[in-house]
């Protein structure tokens, strides 16, 4: 009955995914920001794009919306290439940028009136009113006087009211107080539920990511280093804590990421952690071998932090 997990597996499905990147690269001068990025977001799925500051998340979003040209690769948003038909893409996409600039003397009502006229075919006036109420925005307020939270809510409103089939959200709740974050989260939860809407979200607020994301993708060094269903990725990851350790660790099973803390080593396994722990216990080289489950924040810090080192694969 209903949907099975397989629909999110991202396997070879004949229908085009609403968001597709294949081999996309982008560089600014010498700096290579994106390097052959391949990513597919299935229909109706919410994917969280995780990465350090400056890892290229915003660049990727801009390429998807058609604001930035790419240097290689193929992009399809709702089946359309944003470089060739940016107008068509923008009509189907709700985009929240990481900074929205408006004339400070305008009133909220004017902004709404203008964007409503520009997005006329799909703009839902009832939805606009509902969100205005929900967010508590006053139409006569001048944009320059809005608080940060209100401005973020306005940006979200402008993206949600036309009921787009695809949402691209670039850190929609960053820098907001917990109350506003709750409101934003609530409206996003409702927005996600709306029929088959596909969402690509980039955020640092790991709690929100845990709540919202069906799938996660980790972006580091311009590449996607890990991607999959968030429950599965999270479920498979293990931190194996071993102590005591000497200067030379010896052979380690699998391909963990390694972090040393004095006499203790923390081995992070994306998969196969339990087996590796069992192997290490059996080898008797260490007094304590503990395998802990991880949440996404742990995985983020371990995978994308500088402290961890990759360990060369060896005999398992």
């Amino acid at each position, binding site marked *: 009955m209903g*949907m099975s997990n397989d629909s999110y597996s991202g396997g070879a499905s004949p229908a085009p995914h609403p968001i597709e990147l294949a081999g996309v690269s982008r560089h600014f001068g010498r700096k290579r920001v994106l390097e052959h990025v391949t990513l597919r977001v299935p229909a109706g*799925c919410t994917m969280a794009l995780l990465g350090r500051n400056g890892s290229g998340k915003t660049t990727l979003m801009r390429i998807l919306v058609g604001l930035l040209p790419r240097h290689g690769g193929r992009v399809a948003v709702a089946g359309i290439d944003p470089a060739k038909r940016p107008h068509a893409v923008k009509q189907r996409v709700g985009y929240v940028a990481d900074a929205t600039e408006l004339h400070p003397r305008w009133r909220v009502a004017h902004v709404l009136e203008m964007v409503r006229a520009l997005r006329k075919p799909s703009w839902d006036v009832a939805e606009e009113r509902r969100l205005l109420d929900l967010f508590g925005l006053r139409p006569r307020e001048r944009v320059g006087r809005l608080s940060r939270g209100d401005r973020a809510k306005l940006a979200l409103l402008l993206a949600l009211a036309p009921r787009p089939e695809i949402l691209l959200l670039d850190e929609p709740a960053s820098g907001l107080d917990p109350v506003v974050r709750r409101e934003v989260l609530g409206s996003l*939860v409702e927005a996600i*539920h709306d029929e088959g809407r596909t969402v690509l979200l980039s955020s640092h607020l790991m709690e929100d990511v845990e709540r*919202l994301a069906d799938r996660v993708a980790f972006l580091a060094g311009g590449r996607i280093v890990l991607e999959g269903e968030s*429950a599965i990725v999270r479920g498979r990851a293990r931190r194996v804590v071993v102590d005591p350790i000497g200067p030379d660790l010896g052979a380690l099973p699998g391909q963990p990421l390694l972090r040393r803390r004095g006499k203790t080593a923390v081995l992070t396994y994306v998969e196969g952690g339990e087996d590796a722990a069992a192997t290490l216990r059996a080898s008797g080289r260490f007094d304590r071998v503990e395998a802990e489950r991880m949440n996404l924040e742990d995985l983020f810090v371990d995978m994308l932090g500088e402290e961890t080192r990759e360990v060369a694969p060896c005999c398992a």
Partner: protein
Amino acid sequence: MNFPIDPKSTVPLSDQIAEGIRFAVATGRLAPGERLPGVRVLARDLLVNPNTVAKVYRDLEREGVLRTRPGSGAFVASRAAERCRRASHASVVSALRAAVARGVAAGLSGEEIARVAHACLEEAGVHGHVQ
């Protein structure tokens, strides 16, 4: 319907939600035949992805805890309470075991642990035979 969920816990959210529903069914807060909130409503209340809630409902239905009627929503199954109690029983027992093991490891004697257990039971108004 509300129960605390911790997104930061290493326990997956779907497990937490499923556990919460099972507990409610086991303790009778959700009576057999009672209608559960819709996926959208529960997602909104809990602030989680509706797909997660939908998955939980599907899993619980497969377990036999819930029964869905197309168009009407999800209802507590008739003999769900028993099943849930058994599942809860297992998780509670393992939690007790873990607590006792920690006490032993911390150096508490068997009498101290038993005394604490007694006191808790009396506070909860449950009398039982203690060895």
